[in-house]
């Protein structure tokens, strides 16, 4: 049975679109407050960031409309082609890229700086969805795992070459997608344990941890049957883990760059350097903390208005929200995001096509990663990694990329009833 499909607007998920519009407009307001300039006090002033953001929003809506007009089969059919284009642009940026604050990840398109790494997320998402939705593909196969990790790994390496660690880290979000598609939970648990051990190795003296591990091994040893094979594997495991702790310690002190080390130290509370690496986080916490319950009011935030918080319109935009809208505004913003994520997952689960479902999970994962790291960073729960808050942060490339990513999914969803 085929339904009327001429008017796709009837099938659009308006809740998602509504949340999208709310976030984008709220972001625009906060950009206005964050970089408010008395000489140019109109929010429509095109010489200021708020004026430019307005243009980006209008362009985004235009892009969204174009996507909604597009036949959804195109995304499936051109998934690898788009992936290829994206990889090409990531290559290109290495040669013709423009360097902004340490990262060579921009291409100057005459007035508009395009950031290919933002669009790479869409491409990777499409490619994974296409790859995993193919026939005869099962996550249990080693081959599948390798090809999938290759699809994700290639752009990551290229982005790392641009010195844009933050954007590269975003791609770890796709692990959630893989988990949904059958990647063993053990992989995630081991991964989690490795991260915990990694952090512990940085915070506590390595010999204490190794002694503690030895204690666990002894207790474990007392619980198992004492056959030779178990003893050997337990000993092997212990040596492996101890070696890991030791090498993390070594790597941290001898391999990592000074500024990476500082950021990690600040995060784990080992170092309080309020003028250097800790300055941003401290000022950001001051901004948000000084907002109290109801905030200082629109345009009244002193921390952000007088530039105490750096990058207050891009990566640290949440400071403006926390300072001017207080606890209430911050919680509402967080709630809006959570609702959006849950909504996307619900939509993904109702998809009949695997391609759309996998793609939907990818969208939610990427958005969630941005949300988690960005807000976590501003309130001192995550390391300072320069990635934007979706829809809220200033920036054309990121807004376009997030919009395209979301609306491709909305377009797919609008078509869910027609399987082919």
């Amino acid at each position, binding site marked *: 049975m085929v339904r009327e499909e001429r008017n796709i607007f009837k099938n659009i998920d308006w809740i998602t679109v509504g949340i999208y519009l709310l976030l984008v407009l709220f972001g625009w307001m906060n950009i206005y407050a964050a970089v408010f300039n008395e000489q140019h006090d109109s929010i429509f002033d095109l010489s200021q960031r708020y004026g430019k953001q307005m243009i980006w929003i209008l362009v985004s809506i235009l892009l969204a409309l174009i996507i909604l007009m597009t036949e959804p089969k195109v995304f499936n059919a051109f998934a690898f082609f788009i992936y290829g284009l994206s990889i090409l642009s990531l290559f290109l940026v290495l040669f013709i890229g423009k360097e902004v604050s340490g990262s060579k990840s921009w291409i100057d398109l005459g007035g508009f700086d395009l950031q290919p790494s933002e669009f790479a997320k869409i491409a990777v998402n499409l490619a994974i969805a296409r790859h995993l939705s193919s026939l005869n593909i099962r996550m249990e196969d080693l081959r599948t795992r390798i090809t999938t990790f290759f699809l994700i790994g290639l752009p990551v390496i290229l982005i790392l070459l641009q010195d844009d660690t933050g954007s590269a880290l975003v791609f770890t979000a796709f692990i959630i997608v893989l988990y949904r598609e059958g990647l063993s939970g053990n992989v995630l648990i081991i991964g989690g344990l490795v991260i915990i051990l990694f952090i512990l190795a940085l915070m506590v003296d390595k010999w204490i941890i190794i002694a503690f591990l030895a204690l666990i091994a002894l207790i474990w040893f007392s619980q198992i049957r004492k056959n030779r094979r178990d003893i050997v594997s337990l000993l092997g495991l212990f040596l492996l883990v101890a070696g890991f702790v030791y090498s993390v310690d070594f790597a941290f002190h001898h391999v990592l760059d000074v500024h990476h080390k500082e950021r990690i130290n600040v995060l784990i509370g080992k170092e309080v350097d309020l003028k250097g690496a800790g300055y941003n986080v401290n000022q950001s916490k*001051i901004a948000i*903390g000084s907002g109290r319950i109801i905030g200082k009011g629109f345009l009244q935030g*002193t921390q952000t208005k007088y*530039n105490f918080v750096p990058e207050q319109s891009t990566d640290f935009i949440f400071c403006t929200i926390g300072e001017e809208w207080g606890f209430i505004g*911050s919680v509402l913003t*967080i*709630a809006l995001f959570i609702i959006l994520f849950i909504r996307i997952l619900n939509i993904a689960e109702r998809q009949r096509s695997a391609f759309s479902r996998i793609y939907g999970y990818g969208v939610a994962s990427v958005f969630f990663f941005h949300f988690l790291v960005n807000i976590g960073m501003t309130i001192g*729960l995550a390391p300072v990694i320069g990635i934007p808050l979706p829809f809220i942060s200033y920036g054309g490339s990121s807004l376009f990329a997030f919009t395209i990513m979301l609306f491709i999914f909305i377009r797919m969803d609008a078509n869910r009833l027609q399987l082919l």
Partner: protein
Amino acid sequence: MIFIIAGVIFVLRLFWLQIVDRSYYFSANNNVLRHITQYPARGLIYDRGGELLVYNEATYDLMVIPRQARNFDTLELCGLIGIDYETFRERMKKIREYSLYRPSVFEKQISKEAYGFLEEKLYKFPGFYVQPRTLRKYVRPIAAHTMGYVGEVSPRICEVNPYYKPGDYIGISGIEKSYEEALRGIKGSRIIMVDVFNRDQGSFQDGKYDTIAVMGKNLYASLDMKLQEYGELLMTNKRGSVVAIEPESGEILALVTSPGYDPNLLVGRVRSYNYNILAKDSLKPLFNRALQAQYPPGSTFKLVHALIGLEEGVLNLQTRYGCAMGYSSGPIHVGCHAHAGPLDLIQSIAQSCNAYYCNVFRTILDNRSLPNQAAGYAKWREMTCSLGFGSAFDSDIPNLVSGFIPKNEYFDNIYGKNRWRFLTIVSLSIGQGEILTTPLQLANLAATIANRGYYCTPHIIRAVGKQDDRQEKFQQKHSIPISRRHFETVVEGMYQVVEAGTAHYYKMDSIPICGKTGTAQNPHGKDHSIFIAFAPKDNPKIAISVIVENAGFGATWAAPIAFLMIEKYLMKEIKRKDVETRMIEGNLLSN
């Protein structure tokens, strides 16, 4: 699930940051609010005629905010304020170490002229701006010690007194010190908001919490500027002091110490340099002789003996003692000059007979109504101290010294209890020996006698704030427990000193002056020349003490200088130009 957990963690964290922990709120205020001190102008000082003595002159501190000071012609700036490149670099280094974002003083107290040049070019030097301050300026180069000086507050004072912040000015000596609280005014405060580069972003809440600086109170000094200036002129090239008091009120008319210095030397940037030079000068120009030097009073103290003898009844107008070139008793001999004899009381003052006062002092100690000489001495000491000797006045001039009138215990310690008697301390009879007095105390003695039995604490400031508000605490009269008629007797004696006695050489016909000469022997060389006086004899308007160090007889230098001062004050002009010229040109420093 994982989304909700993350959301909850974020909300809890926000709850902690925004609601539980208040410290971020204060940190935000610290970031953005700057309390800017508004410095009040220091109070002005006027003389008794209402003429301005001390005022404020604008000066400018060149301030710098290192963070903003970039991309300018360093050498041009060095040239404008007259420093070399090395100095510039060292200063900037120190300032940067203090703070990159807060303003520091780069160059203190730039003169008006230099500021004129600098102001036009200041736009070329980002991060530099000029903050106006005030410096003291003295209309005439007089009364330096009395006025005192103002300087930057010491770190120690900042610690104990929260009013002062480093870099503030404070009165360090003289009346600048004793009237600091009235003069300094009330600092104002303006709260402004700044951005991360410390740029002014306007006042906080439209200035709701700002306070305006209140100018310091003006002081109305009792000094007579013309008399002070004349006194300093007369004391040129002499070491010593002149203290003139209005007897009735205790107001100090002139307070001259010589050698002195121009008070403008100890102002602003040149202060520490000049201070060092003055401090090392062998003539000790920084030493305020009028208040702090202690001299044996010499024969002027015979007036004290006479008053006490009369009051105790061991002496009367008719008492006569012979003098054979001095007083002799056993091995002791106190010499005297040649004069007719025997003398009565009036003549003994007029001729300043040493033998007479040895006898008077002996009869005071021998007072029959008292058990022994020690008791007699104690009584004498008590009455002497009632005249203002032996202790410092509770006045408004800082660092007064007390002089010295020995207690019984002092002699007990030296000679043993009951092992000393009149002959042991006979030199006290003629104001020598252990007695030490300050020129201010001697002037006060003259004022007390002029008042016939009382004095008001000598002071330098008549009124604070309003010209007619006389200071209450200096209105109080200190009565002397000696009857008025005895004072009249001594006044007559002092009148004869000038009419026909030791000081008649420079006698002035126009004004009836009462005085007493003194010649203080001292271990530092030639005798000090001392003269105390008041005039006119009836209804006196001025009491004075003059001490010229190492100048010989009281009559030679101190007396004529006192006469000239009296004439200047009462008649406004000097008739005896020859005497005046001789006194001014007399150079007692060259030998």
